């Protein structure tokens, strides 16, 4: 029994406990309890991880534990974490914690809702704690499937369409991923040994370059779909717009990171040569995605669409950073995963709360809400400022790391890409301020909005948690970039750099 | 001059009956007449069995088929149709396609049958006495049929029960579903 297993077991136990809950009060308290426990567990994990590192253990992955699963195929449930997965686990528990409180008032089918939500979360946790490709894939699917139900049942607007679209596109991604994974599996033992899905064992060998070139697009695009790679991002606006609050939070906040994590952990780590060969192409797509998402957000009228496009832009920045193949850019990209995860969760939480009051998400139908609900409004503005990369918040540090890393490539191609990517900080400012100006500031447009209430305690808790972490990371970025992530970048960097 | 034995004459007569009434059965536009024609076909078949000396088989054919099934069919016709009803004429396309398929199938099958060189057995006539059939049906030795016999009896039971279940009057609360 490994400590890491708790991250999957606690959600599952929570789910079982929810099955026996009698009413919504019990359901949400059980969910809140379980997820608080999860938050504490991840804090413990961070501490444990730091202690292990402090003890001088320099393995790529720590707390490795091998549980046999399909012995005949040598598929194992191999647990193990490094700094990156630890920080992403922490991110997930923060977001799901806030998500539970953000959906405090989910009345209809509350039991089923919380169960699906937590199953989804446990899939994400599972994905981050394993280093066996097959187990990762299984958990990945576990995370994607409840999404369909969550959007299809509890969504708003054209929810069936969105749920279908989202699920189908992600499933298409899965199809590509499984091809890529099997390809790696069958080349995991070049000297005729036992085939394996274990990340560590695969990384000992070099997969032949032509095989790498063949498999890389499958894995990059497959995970890229989830990471909102242009032009395969279109599930994101519809999906997010239709999903209920907590689902949008979890999805944009964490699930999209599964994509970029997969790109980093599997595509780049295992196929470094192909990454070099084909990096330029995907870099172009990522750059387009950054600018395109931001420009697309300017003219949107629906709050959720704005945020969804913003997510496209920010997630493209993650891929952009990863494809720079150097320490600071990748460091920044991973920090951006965390930062964007919290930030976008905050946005979706706030949008959900505002929508719950005004019953509209159209920015032009609202106005002057800052006066009516100062806390939510202020939180939205702070979130907006964080999103446009204000120093003091996490997004700034991540962006700077990525830009610095990107700028250390002195050739014209990378320079132009960097300048274009950097221009997104202006465009981001434009759309964020436009939205804030229209719906939070100005005179109150709808007289009915005059009597709306401000945040309740659970909303304060949800929003406060997220804000706290955005600020903490922004103020003390070194803790994440150096202490947590720093050492863990080395193996991947080594493999990526060795080709130069 | 083709010499025709009595047997042959009888055989050809019943063959003609069977073929003609078969075709009439499927082309008649009055359902009750079709049922009657079917009865003739079945009786013709029974005559075949008698001709081939399978008297028990022939008897079964008459009692079960001609007596049982046809009566059943006629009952159901009376339950579901008006006696004077005529079928609508069949669409030309459907008619042609079906006809083509049937003729092609018949031609093809006949071609195969006539092409094949069947070597008749020289053992002699089969023994189809009721005694032998009765023994064989209840025998568990070689050439015994007690297992299929039992299976068939179970099947019959199941069919009876099934028929009752299906045909029984439905509960009233399902009425509204019927009209959807």
């Amino acid at each position, binding site marked *: 029994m490994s400590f890491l297993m708790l991250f999957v077991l606690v959600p599952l136990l929570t789910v079982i406990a929810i099955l026996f809950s009698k009413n919504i009060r019990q359901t949400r308290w059980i969910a809140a309890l379980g997820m608080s426990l999860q938050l504490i567990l991840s804090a413990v994990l961070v501490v444990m991880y730091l202690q292990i590192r402090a003890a001088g253990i320099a393995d790529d992955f720590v707390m490795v534990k091998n549980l046999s699963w399909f012995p005949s195929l040598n598929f194992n449930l191999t647990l193990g974490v490094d700094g990156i997965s630890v920080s992403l686990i922490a991110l997930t528990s923060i977001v799901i914690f806030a998500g539970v409180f953000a959906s405090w008032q989910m009345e209809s089918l509350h039991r089923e809702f919380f169960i699906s939500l937590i199953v989804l979360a446990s899939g994400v946790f599972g994905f981050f704690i394993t280093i066996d490709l097959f187990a990762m894939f299984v958990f990945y699917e576990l995370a994607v499937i409840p999404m369909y139900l969550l959007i299809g049942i509890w969504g708003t607007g054209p929810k069936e369409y969105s749920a279908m679209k989202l699920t189908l596109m992600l499933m298409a991604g899965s199809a590509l991923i499984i091809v890529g994974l099997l390809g790696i599996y069958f080349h995991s033992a070049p000297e005729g040994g036992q085939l394996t899905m274990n990340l560590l064992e695969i990384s000992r060998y070099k997969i032949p370059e032509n095989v790498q070139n063949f498999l890389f697009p499958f894995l990059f695009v497959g995970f890229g779909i989830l990471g909102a790679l242009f032009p395969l991002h279109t599930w994101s606006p519809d999906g997010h717009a239709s999903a209920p609050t907590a689902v949008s939070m979890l999805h944009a906040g964490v699930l999209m990171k599964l994509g970029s994590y997969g790109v980093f952990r599997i595509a780049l780590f295992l196929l470094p040569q192909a990454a070099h060969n084909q990096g330029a192409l995907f870099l172009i797509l990522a750059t387009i995605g950054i600018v395109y998402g931001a420009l697309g957000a300017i003219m949107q009228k629906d709050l959720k669409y704005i945020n969804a496009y913003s997510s496209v832009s920010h997630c493209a920045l993650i891929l952009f950073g990863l494809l720079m193949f150097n320490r600071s850019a990748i460091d920044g990209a991973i920090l951006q995963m965390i930062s964007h995860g919290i930030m976008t969760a905050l946005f979706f939480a706030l949008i959900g709360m505002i929508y719950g009051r005004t019953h509209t998400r159209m920015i032009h139908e609202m106005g002057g809400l800052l006066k009516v609900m100062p806390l939510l409004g202020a939180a939205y503005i702070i979130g907006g400022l964080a999103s446009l990369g204000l120093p003091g918040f996490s997004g700034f540090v991540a962006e700077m790391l990525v830009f*610095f890393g990107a700028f250390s490539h002195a050739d014209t191609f990378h320079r132009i890409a960097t300048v274009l990517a950097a221009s997104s900080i202006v465009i981001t400012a434009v759309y964020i301020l436009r939205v804030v100006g229209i719906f939070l500031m100005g005179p109150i447009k709808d007289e009915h909005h005059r009597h709306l209430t401000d945040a309740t305690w659970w909303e304060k808790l949800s929003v406060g948690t997220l804000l706290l972490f955005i600020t903490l990371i922004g103020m003390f970025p070194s803790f994440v970039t150096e202490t947590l992530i720093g050492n863990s970048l080395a193996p991947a960097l080594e493999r990526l750099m060795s080709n130069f | 001059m083709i010499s025709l034995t009595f047997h042959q004459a009888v055989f050809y007569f019943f063959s003609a009956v069977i073929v003609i009434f078969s075709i009439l059965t499927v082309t008649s536009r009055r359902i009750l007449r079709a049922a009657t024609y079917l009865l003739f076909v079945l009786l013709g078949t029974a005559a075949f069995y008698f001709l081939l000396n399978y008297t028990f088989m022939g008897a079964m054919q008459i009692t079960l088929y001609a007596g049982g099934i046809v009566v059943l069919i006629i009952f159901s016709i009376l339950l579901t149709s008006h006696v004077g009803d005529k079928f609508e004429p069949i669409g030309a396309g459907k008619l042609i396609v079906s006809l083509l398929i049937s003729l092609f199938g018949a031609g093809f099958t006949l071609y195969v049958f006539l092409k094949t060189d069947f070597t008749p057995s020289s053992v002699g006539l089969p023994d189809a006495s009721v005694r032998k059939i009765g023994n064989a049906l209840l025998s568990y030795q070689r050439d015994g049929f007690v297992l299929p016999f039992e299976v068939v009896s179970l099947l019959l039971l199941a069919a009876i029960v099934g028929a009752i279940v299906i045909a029984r009057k439905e509960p009233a609360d399902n009425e509204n579903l019927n009209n959807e």
Partner: protein
Amino acid sequence: MNAFEYTFLIPFIPLLGFLLIIFNFKRFPKKLTAALATSLIGISFVLSVYTAWQYFIIMGPLHGVYPKIIGNHFEWLKLGEHLSVHMGTLIDQASVMMLIVVSTVSLMVHIYSIGYMHDDRGFNRFFAFLQLFSFSMLSLVIATNVFQIYIFWELVGVSSFLLIGFYYEKPSAVAASKKAFIVTRFADLFFLLGILLISFHTDTFDFISLTNPENFERFNLHGTTFLGLSIPALALILIFVGGAGKSAMFPLHIWLPDAMEGPSPVSALIHAATMVVAGVYLVARMFANYAIMAPEALALVGYVGAFTSLFAAVIATTQIDFKRVLAFSTISQIGYMMAALGVSGYGEEAGLGYMASMFHLFTHAMFKALLFLGAGAVIHAVHTNSIREMGGLRKYMKTTHITFLIATLAIAGFPGLSGFFSKDEIITAAHQSYPLVFYTLLVVAGLTAFYMFRLYFLVFWNTETHYHHKPHDPGKAMLIPLIILAVLSIVSGYIPFGEFVSSDGKPLHTHLHFDIAIISTLVSFVGIAIAWFLYKKSSDLTSHLIARWGTFYRWAYNKFYIDEVYLFITHNIIFAYISRPIAWFDRHVVDGTMNVIGWITVTTSEKIKGMQSGQLQQYAFAFVSAILVISAFLIYYLINN
């Protein structure tokens, strides 16, 4: 190790105030907030003065050069192998001078705001933001490295955004705050790229190593850039664009006039005295790099500064909004400072322009803050911004009138007042090397005198309009800062500034250049005289003149339509032809492709589904045909084998 470790407190005390107030902004009574904020900024002020005293007086120059001292610093973020971002305090001539400027004006504005914002619902919020701004600005000026400057650069931008949009229910204020933020953000993009470029080539952010001429040899500055510029020139121009955005240089000046939507104390603090000079300060910070590495970039700074100065002065003569006149005046004066930097050389006497620029920055901060605070007092009293609706106020607001007059005289370059000295230095510096800049600045000096006195006469003299309430001098809280700043506006000119602030750290002995001084004084007097003639009493001469100069007047009045050009570019080109098509493209083409794929699948399945019609006979057809075909093949196969 060093005596300046306490300097980190200077910015941190206002930060503490910000946090205290913002987390209690519903609980704190106004009095508590005011007392807390003012006393905290007071402590910062005292510490700043103490720092200056310690640095300039106690320590003095070391071997004839003022040292650059790192007060304290720590590594905040590692950016790469060699580069890391530090946070800390750098104590040198410029930063200490700026500490004084920022903390003085900030303290004055805090005191003033107690009176000015007294009846406002957002009193606590206002003070919280003021504290936030003070924190950011103080951190900016004592930044040890260019990246720290960038960080706080953004934060002052945000404070400015929050304060301009303070009356967030007023659409014009919202629009102005948005505009200010986006325009400066746009410029910051270039700043950032400049930082990226220069740090890539020098491997350092630190001002001490970055600006030390002895290091320049070691920097790897080779490589090609576009337009044939050298790398340092390109990088420094990019950084200057950042500075130009914050300092409202043409053509990025458009946000500053609109920023006057904020409360008057904010205009005084942020948009006159401190934040807007950050651009000047930035160029001054990296002056060695500009002067030695890329003189062409420095020349650009000079010309842009001079042009902006003239441009804004011309517009200022036509504006009728009290605060907008002052805003254009600010732009013009900052242009002055930029021009002074541009014409300066590095070190010794050649560095006169640098010193003059800093001097003008210092004096300008005092009198421009005074002007804005005075404007605030007037607006507070008469409830309008339009100078057409004012007049004859000298009778009602005696103290305000006198302090305003002092400030006006100071900015107009009246001999004996602070502006006279600093402006004189600038014009002298320009005279030495750049005749074009020199004449421009001279013309601007005349224009400045003219439009400031136009403003002064229109407000305090001229025909008295009918006021609903009798205007009166504001309360003590507002008057005291006015008086203090008036005193400072007079005396700050007598500081031997060159002794303290110079381009290379060595004290620079300056003296008044009488020839230049006489010319510039004459020009100013001409300006004042014309204003006197036209505006002291209401006369129809002005309208005649306006009619004569119709087109030009209209252009100047409309700020040469720069705003409209921007609006056209952003709304009609970027929004309409880029963003909207992208939104459309995304919905219909990219998403459409996905939907077409889905549609194909669905349609195919519909067709297949159609076969499953429930029509028994169709199944039978299929069945029989299939059986026949299969058996035909089978038989054929059997026969042939």
